């Protein structure tokens, strides 16, 4: 077996040390070395966005980053999106809008959408569709995902509680909210 390299990095605000082979992608390190399986493997060649994480403040496909490149960097994964107080508005909106079916693409969509809404909380549908072009979903047909992101953007503008959203995007979501959360 090849020599392993010691890497020191910060993941979800926690300093992390790990050993990995040079050939292991950041995605493999997250899932197989660190056991953080929230980040998903889809295509493993930079097309589908299922493995999206923040890498030094920008979103990247973690299948196209080496684990050893994480030395000294700051990473955010889906596991770092919710807070101890509850789900992130995006996560809440995905539930309420039923914006997932099989769920494999969901962590990537939420991490990618988070990076957009943090920059542009007023992003409109066209902008959201453009920003999420690097995330593929084979179940939903995208409309529910776009509605959820629009709703989360509105919630974030209102101060963060998904239950206060009253947009057209959120209309009809009441039943699902009850099912999932009460």
């Amino acid at each position, binding site marked *: 077996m090849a020599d392993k390299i010691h890497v020191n990095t910060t993941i979800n605000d926690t300093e992390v040390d790990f050993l990995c082979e040079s*050939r292991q992608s950041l995605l493999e390190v997250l899932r197989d070395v660190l056991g953080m399986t929230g980040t998903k493997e889809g295509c493993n*060649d*930079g097309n589908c*966005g299922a493995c*999206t994480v923040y890498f030094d403040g920008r979103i990247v496909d973690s299948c196209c980053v*080496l684990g*050893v*490149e994480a*030395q000294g960097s700051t990473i955010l994964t889906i596991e770092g999106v919710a807070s101890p107080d509850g789900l992130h508005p995006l996560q809440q909106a995905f539930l309420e809008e039923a914006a997932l079916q099989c769920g494999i693409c969901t962590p990537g969509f939420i991490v990618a959408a988070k990076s957009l809404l943090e920059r542009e909380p007023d992003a409109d549908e066209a902008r959201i569709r453009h920003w999420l072009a690097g995330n593929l979903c084979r179940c939903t047909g995208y409309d529910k995902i776009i509605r959820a992101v629009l709703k989360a953007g509105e919630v974030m503008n209102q101060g963060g509680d998904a239950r206060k959203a009253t947009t057209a995007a959120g209309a009809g979501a009441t039943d699902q909210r009850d099912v999932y959360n009460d």
Partner: protein
Amino acid sequence: MQEFEYVAPNNLEDAIKLMAEKGPKAKILAGGTDVLVQMRGGRFQIDRLVNVNNIPELNQFSCSEADGLTLGAAVPCCEIYEDQTIQKLYPGLVDSASLIGGIQIQGRATVGGNLCNAAPSGDNIPSLIVQEAVAIVAGPNGRRNIPVEEFCSGPGRNVLQDGEILVAIHIPAPKANYGAHFLRFIPRNEMDIAVANSAASVLLDDSKQHIVSGRIAIGSVGPTVIFAKDASALLAGKEANEATIEEVAEATKKAASPINDMRGTIDQRIHLVGVLTKRALRTAISRAREG
């Protein structure tokens, strides 16, 4: 993925030495969006991967009206299209840098890597050629400058010798009455490889009615991106009107030598190159008139 030695030198001299020691068995890692995928796919076997992201000269850019743009080879696309000075002075480069891949890819993928990867469809390459960009290369025998139109030697091949590294790309300072534009055709809205692409640049005279000189480059219609020299030469001295645009687009189609493949047919690609070149010229001319 195969095993390899990973090194991350923090200066150019060390990187050249590390590359030269292994010759063709060494590759550069910048954005990784091509090289890591190719290694995983078994396209080549290497002994050493040299990460250049810690080398200052490759990771910075300077852009000014007086000195033009000097773009470190490892600067990612997003930093290019987000920079307001580049947006103002080089909209033709922003056209291509902002449509490669999705946001995740643009956060890592580099213009330098796009050039070195030498894909016939590489979207930044026509933009660079029409803007008279020069590749600044450093190697064991010193530095040399290579016009971008001479950089790619075949599909996936370039003229770099063992140990040579693309350090930066320089685009000359923009002139008055100058405009450039790039566009491509893909069947989707985003995230695809060009069926055909085209870039055009024009320099107008002070009346803004006549073309002093211009360049056209086309991609995905040959083994490398093609600098359409004959069509470009036709631009000089012509009126900047639809008749000229038609004539030059027809001449550009003659420079194309595409193949049939899953993305498109020969006929479709030649037709597309004509349409795209017309549109690229129209926008280049209107940008030249505004600028």
